[in-house]
């Protein structure tokens, strides 16, 4: 972990700077936190509070929305689907990325540069471009072989794991490069094969990087909407699509929508804030390099 450097400008700051900072950061905090406040306060409001004009302070607090959300739509089912899909996609993506990053970091082979550039450039292509063909390919694979990818969790897992793959490989290559090669060479002298060196030396030394990549992969899968809206059916629907179920009812129970939004956000936000130290370094390493 890199330590934050000492404050860069040793000069005393003029009043104008300090006041600009105070005012700007206060406004920015209000902008940033307004939705969070709305989410939190509305999720504790009784229904009549969210059906009339907006109230900053609830007329009374109730936990009813948190109980009702599980009945209005099958939220538990969506939650389970999201957990299965996101966890599987994360585990698979990180495993695949570790192997690929090890190859890119430790070997000089033909096509190395081509591989990294191709994989990274897929990142910038519009999702809509893959969506239609992938939909067709999944449907046709299903017709031809009976392997149901369309509408199944498997298809979604496969799709999501490739979404986080390019960035994960990129981040891990950076981490692996920073681990001295002498370490894995020493392990190989001691009789480890290349894979032994990877798992006994490189992986343990790169734990922060792997944690960062895992959080990133999980967030990607947990938050994806476009493919989830097309590739899932009633039994495999994830939260990304399922949450909109509250809004399509004739009456929108906004207090329940907010409670459900909060419930699905807590796991990722908590994970992100706990691990932000690792993530900040990892996510930005590429842009800074």
């Amino acid at each position, binding site marked *: 972990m890199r330590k934050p450097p000492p404050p860069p400008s040793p000069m005393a700051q003029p009043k104008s700077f300090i006041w600009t900072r105070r005012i700007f950061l206060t406004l920015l905090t209000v902008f940033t936190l307004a939705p969070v406040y709305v989410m939190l306060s509305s999720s504790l409001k009784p229904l009549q509070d969210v059906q009339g004009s907006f109230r900053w302070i609830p007329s009374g607090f109730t936990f009813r929305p948190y109980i009702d959300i599980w009945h209005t739509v099958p939220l538990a089912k969506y939650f389970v689907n999201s957990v299965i899909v996101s966890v599987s996609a994360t585990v698979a993506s990180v495993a695949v990325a570790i192997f690929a990053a090890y190859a890119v970091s430790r070997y000089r082979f033909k096509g190395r540069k081509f591989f990294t550039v191709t994989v990274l450039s897929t990142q910038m292509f519009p999702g*809509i471009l893959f969506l239609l063909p992938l939909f067709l390919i999944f449907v046709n694979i299903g017709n031809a072989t009976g392997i149901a990818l369309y509408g199944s969790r498997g298809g979604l897992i496969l799709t999501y794991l490739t979404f986080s793959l390019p960035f994960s490989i990129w981040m891990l290559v950076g981490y692996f490069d920073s681990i001295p090669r002498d370490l894995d060479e020493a392990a190989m002298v001691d009789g480890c094969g290349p894979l032994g060196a990877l798992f006994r030396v490189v992986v343990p030394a790169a734990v922060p990087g792997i944690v960062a990549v895992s959080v990133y992969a999980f967030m990607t899968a947990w938050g994806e909407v476009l493919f989830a809206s097309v590739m899932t059916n009633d039994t495999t629907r994830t939260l990304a699509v399922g949450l909109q179920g509250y809004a399509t009812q004739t009456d929108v129970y906004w207090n329940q929508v907010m409670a459900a939004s909060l419930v699905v956000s807590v796991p990722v936000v908590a994970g992100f804030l706990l691990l932000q130290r690792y993530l900040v370094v990892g996510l930005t390493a590429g842009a800074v390099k």
Partner: protein
Amino acid sequence: MIARLRRIGLPYLLLLPALLLELLIHLIPMIVGIVMSFKQLTQFFIRDWGAAPWAGLDNYRVAVDFDAPVGQALLHSFWVTLCFTVLAVGLSWLLGTAAAILMQDAFRGRGFLRAIFLVPYALPVYAAVITWSFMFQRDTGLINHVIHDQLHLTSERSFWLIGDNSFTALVTVSVWRSWPFAFLCLMAGLQNIPRELYEAASMDGAGVWQQIRRITLPSLRPVNQVLVLVLFLWTFNDFNTPYVLFGRSAPEAADLISIHIYQSSFVTWNFGSGSAMSVLLLLFLLVVTAIYLLVTSRRRDAADA
């Protein structure tokens, strides 16, 4: 011999899973998409798309015929997306830069504030955007409550999610979601500026504002080169924000290109023309990226020389 083969083959073996997945999910679909764009692929051929008749350039001709309704709508959507992207990226970058620079020096509560600023980035898109759509509701939302009920700025409650205001709403939500990423990248970039530069400048009598203008901003140029491009591509391709904010039918003023293609594909089930539009979008992005990299790299070289 076998040992040598294994040594040469090993890196490829390690890459194999990643390669196969990229092929299956990205490269093959992309090629299929390009092929599809030359086919007359309507709902009758979804189950057996190989049987669809060839269309030649018809799908493209229809898409860029700006006198006919389809082309007109696409062109409109393109302009909306372009305006939206320029505004949203510009504002996100501005907020991110200002916040990063103002938080460069340690002060009380800096770490806490940083964590708060990362929340929009960490929240799942749909949860955050649903909350915004609640805030933008005409009768029950926070925005109208503040603007109309409390500040009396409008004579009556305005609609935010339909009509022309929807563009403003979309930009607001998009900036809210993407400025923290700019902030993150720029914070990391600031850490790489050598402290001596500031010391030397302050010895020469440069004030804080001058240091920001003369040292901080120029030093951030390499970070900005990548950051602005990434933000541009993400924002231009954004599907999630408008889809969750407006539902399946985006208002005309906020008809972003991804939503537009999605609708014209899945509502009419005309995948051929949808693919043609996607390919055009990809070509546009490739050209913009190439020009951008060319121009910014040249300017960087000129600045270094």
